[in-house]
């Protein structure tokens, strides 16, 4: 498997609980890796990530398997539900004092402009496809190391942005895929409540192109800092 060593090294170097998760947005059924099956149960995107991370689940989810319509919508798998798009839902849920505030945030949530057939998931070390993004659910200390590793080669500052809604979908997958740079996000009410993102865990999304240099930097840190 193409990413077996990279995935195992990441787990070992960081001491991750579970696997980094390879995520790909598939344009058509032909883009689904051979042998991959539809997810057997309806879930949220964040739950699919958690299942791949903690149970080793491999598979893909079309519109029919996605339970969270907002998550599926930002990933281009279905049209955005009107009440989410106009901010009404989040204002009613109590995230914002005003509809205007909700609209301000909702309009800024990263969303792909493309249409996709499905989202594909696998633990990175078992992935038999080129992921768009690798989602790593980790402790703040582990994410500190990942951020330092990202900056190791060329320096600068890490830019993270999130709004506390649509975290593992918009912030960790779409923003990372579209921008081509990593992002850190703190989860959202849905992923904390339903998908088991723990109190001491945050999320790091990284484009696959950056992962090898991050692992190399982590090895250097391991030698220097233990």
């Amino acid at each position, binding site marked *: 498997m193409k990413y077996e060593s990279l995935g195992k090294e990441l787990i070992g170097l960081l001491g991750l609980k579970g696997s980094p998760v390879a995520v790909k947005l598939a344009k058509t059924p032909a883009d689904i890796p051979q042998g991959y099956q539809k997810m057997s149960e309806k879930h949220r995107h964040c739950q699919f990530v958690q299942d791949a991370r903690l149970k080793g689940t491999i598979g893909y989810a079309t519109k029919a398997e996605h339970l969270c319509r907002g998550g599926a919508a930002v990933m281009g798998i279905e049209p955005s539900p009107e009440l989410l798009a106009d901010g009404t839902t989040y204002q009613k849920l109590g995230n914002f004092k005003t509809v205007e505030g909700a609209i301000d945030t909702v309009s800024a949530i*990263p969303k792909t402009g493309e249409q996709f057939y499905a989202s594909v998931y696998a633990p990175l070390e078992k992935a038999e496809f080129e992921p768009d993004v690798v989602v790593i659910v980790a402790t703040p200390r582990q994410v500190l190391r990942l951020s330092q590793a990202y900056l190791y080669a060329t320096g600068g500052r*890490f*830019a993270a*942005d999130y*709004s506390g809604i649509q975290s593992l979908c918009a912030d960790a997958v779409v923003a990372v895929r579209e921008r*081509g*740079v990593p992002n850190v996000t703190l989860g959202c009410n849905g992923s904390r409540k339903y998908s088991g993102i723990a109190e001491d865990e945050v999320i790091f999304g990284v484009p696959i192109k950056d992962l090898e240099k991050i692992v190399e930097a982590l090895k250097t840190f391991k030698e220097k800092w233990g």
Partner: protein
Amino acid sequence: MVKTIKALGIRAPNAEFLAANVLKNPDTPGEEVRFIVSPGAEAGMEAVARKYGYKAEIAKGEKEVEVRMVPSGKTTEEIDVTGETCPGPVMIVGDKLSSLGIGERLKVKSASADTIADVSAAVTASGSLILNQGKEGDRNFIIVEKAEKKAVAAGTAALASKDRVVVAQSNGIGNAERAYATFIFSKVALSMGKKVTIFFLMDGVGIARKGNAETVKHPAFPVLSQVMDEVIKAGATVYACELSASFRGIKEADLVPGVKLAGAATFIQLLSDPGNAVVNF
């Protein structure tokens, strides 16, 4: 291809850090990147651009600011179509635009304002954008940004824009000017991104008979068969009226490759479709 990153809602200076990381880790070295940010977030972007060898072009809107990071030294491609006569400029610009990626820009210059106006009409019809126009010395110019043609809702497409052109040719090689015009107009329409169908009927079917177009040559144009061949290879659909062919003893095997026989119903259907613009030669 220009990479577009929507980063609305990210405030300064975080947008600046994000931009720096994108420019330091490009998907393709030297790629142009367009950031769409909220007003105010463009602060510091020019410094980021300079630091990483780019030039920032900032266009402020009421709700969004476009910060275009152009690699230093990369200049907008230019073509000067001065001296070219219709349909040359439109076809030259159409060919050039087809080689550019979405978001890339082209400067078109000509001494003739009329030529620039003609090119502008073709560019706009193909869905691309005219960003700027003016005059530099004796040259008129436009700056074109290649864009995808916006999809129009089903049912309204025909009313909104006629994207298909039907060229009906009924005069044949007896009228060389009309014969040439059939294919030259078709080439222009194709270069504007339109779908072209040529329908030969009555004397027009003679053009499609093998060997006939080889006999027509105007001093200022290539031999007619060459222009016809270019249009067929460029993707035009070409029909010859079955009745007209039969009337003149022309069989399908007598037609040049790429021309198919079609009945009157096909012609009527083409004429009846409100999405088709019909030109008669």
